[in-house]
């Protein structure tokens, strides 16, 4: 390989790295300030939770609402997991997600744990059975939307958590996070 060709390749590599750095810093990927300020009501012992062969024994109870307990589950050397379970049995976590890349993130201010159901085989319309989840600072409410885009129910967020068992009947097709002013920050796919 001639020295001029080596120089061209080295220049191309440097240019690519510089471009990637600019894109990362301009897009906000490297300065994600999305956060959960709720550090938990109390630390609790978590029972029978093993993620990738590693047991999770401690968690922070972020809120108890609508007969549900919602947790942040801390892991060593990994972003925290999030879970929910019955409020009557704190420490018994029945649903767990360990979001890749962590939660919250810019562009993902809501981690929805809601349960959907259907009693029809012929269509894939889903209705809400229970609403619950986690939301980043700045999210004032989560709106669940009908297939036509209208709001089926609006659930307020307090302490980075939302939950209710008062769900509307009928099909739901996604949700949106809204801020204090009612502006939509993010919409689910």
């Amino acid at each position, binding site marked *: 390989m001639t020295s001029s060709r080596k120089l061209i390749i080295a220049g191309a590599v440097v240019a690519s790295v510089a471009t990637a750095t600019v894109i990362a810093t301009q897009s906000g990927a490297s300065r994600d300030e999305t956060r959960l300020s709720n550090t938990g009501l109390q630390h609790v012992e978590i029972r029978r939770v093993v993620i990738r062969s590693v047991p999770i024994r401690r968690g922070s109870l972020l809120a108890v609402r609508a007969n549900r307990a919602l947790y942040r589950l801390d892991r060593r050397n990994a972003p925290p997991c999030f879970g929910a379970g019955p409020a009557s049995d704190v420490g018994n976590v029945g649903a767990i997600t360990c979001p*890749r890349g962590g939660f919250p993130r810019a562009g993902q201010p809501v981690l929805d744990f809601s349960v959907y159901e259907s009693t029809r085989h012929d269509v894939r319309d889903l209705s809400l*059975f229970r609403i619950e989840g986690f939301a980043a600072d700045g999210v004032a409410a989560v709106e669940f939307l009908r297939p036509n885009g209208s709001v089926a129910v609006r659930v307020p967020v307090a302490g980075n958590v939302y939950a209710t068992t008062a769900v509307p009947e009928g099909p739901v097709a996604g949700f949106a996070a809204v801020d204090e002013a009612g502006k939509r920050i993010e919409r689910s796919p």
Partner: protein
Amino acid sequence: MKRIVFLVIALVVATAIATLARPAPASAGWCWPNCSGYGYLGPSTSTNNGCWYSSGEVCSYYGYWFNTGIAKTCYPGCNWNYQTTSMVLYGFENRERIRGRLTVKADTVYLRPSEVSMSGSLRAQVAWYAGPASQLNTAAIG
């Protein structure tokens, strides 16, 4: 001769003890497409075993499940939040209803039947809900 007989008897006894002492499988289980790989769940995928939806769903046999989970990959692609364009419903079903949680994320998630207020004999399920096929592995333990 006696030594050989004793040796054979000792071997038989040792084998019997070893066999009896081996722990039984801790629990029943189900995996799709198998317990070590990924499959594609799209609108035409089916396990053909009587799932809630005749296509676009994979489901277990009826069992008393303790937990189910899915590991979904970035196929066919992820944004920088590890979100794909394919949505699945994962959870449980019986003859009356199908229930679960929706996700588009390339993540590993777990769910117990009690979380969807279901109990008794159930099928663990993952159903395609929107978008292209998802690449995932799902399993349930009972």
